[in-house]
């Protein structure tokens, strides 16, 4: 994985597979610390599974729905001197949270978060996605419900033109908030 937005895509794909109807992605910058969290209301994990979910080697093929994605995300955060946390409750959902130190040489570029949102919405058009960006108080919120309200019943959110619009608008707004602070 070369970009944080690809890690976010991969982690949120787990939420889709867990049957979530709401997936909430937050990017919060406070000084040198960037916190990325993905919260869902999917099927969650029991304590046994949760305990080994960050270990790529105890995650066997039968538990393949998680595999390498979480270990890679954890490693990306820890390499910068940050940290990783995952909490989950069976039947309630999962919260995956990673903190990155943005001036570390090992801090990965963000990449295109618009592309990530576009790919997620296309994959799971019925899921409600939220993206909350808060960089030292400069905020941007994206919500698929707002898009669906505008579109009404006639036009699907996963139509190619709409996905293209979502990708562009999310990227533009994120870039405005970011203002070049992180790559």
């Amino acid at each position, binding site marked *: *994985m070369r970009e944080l937005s*690809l890690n976010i*895509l*991969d982690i949120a*794909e787990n939420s889709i*597979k867990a049957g979530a109807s709401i997936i909430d992605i937050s990017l919060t910058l406070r000084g040198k610390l960037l916190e990325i969290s993905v919260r869902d209301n999917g099927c969650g994990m029991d304590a046994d599974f949760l305990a080994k979910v960050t270990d790529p080697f105890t995650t066997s093929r039968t538990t*393949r*729905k998680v*595999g*390498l*994605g979480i270990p*890679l995300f954890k490693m990306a955060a820890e390499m910068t001197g940050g940290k990783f946390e995952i909490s989950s409750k069976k039947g309630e959902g999962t919260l995956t949270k990673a903190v990155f130190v943005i001036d570390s040489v090992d801090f990965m570029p963000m990449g295109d978060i618009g*592309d*990530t949102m*576009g*790919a997620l919405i*296309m*994959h799971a058009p019925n899921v409600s996605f939220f993206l909350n960006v808060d960089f030292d108080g400069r905020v941007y919120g994206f919500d698929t419900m707002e*898009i669906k309200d*505008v*579109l*009404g019943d*006639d*036009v*699907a959110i996963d*139509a*190619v*033109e*709409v*996905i*293209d*619009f979502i*990708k562009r*608008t999310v990227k*533009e*707004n994120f870039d405005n908030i970011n203002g070049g602070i992180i790559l």
Partner: protein
Amino acid sequence: MKSIEELKAIKAKMQAEIGTRDSLTDADTRIVVGMATCGIAAGARPVLNALLEEVQSKRLSGVKVTQAGCLGMCRLEPMVEVYVPGKEKVTYVKVTPEAVKKIVSEHIVNGNVVAEYVIKNI
């Protein structure tokens, strides 16, 4: 807000086209991209983007781009499966955005499989 206005314009344009483009039916061509960790790490997202751009710019109706999990051979990702109604499934491997242009124009539009990216030829 400028972006909401743009979205409304997209909606109006698409409403005008309704009837010429219905939801997915059996008669449609499906293009499936593997988007598990292996696919994403190998570059599946740019491949997905390139597919959407080609479908949009060529205004291909009856073509649906979708995503799946791991398609089974992680070392050959990004993988793309093409299902043309009445034809055998074609699996493309190590697909790049450049390969996508060729696959869409030669296979999806003209019906000629692009042999150089087909799994059995790698």
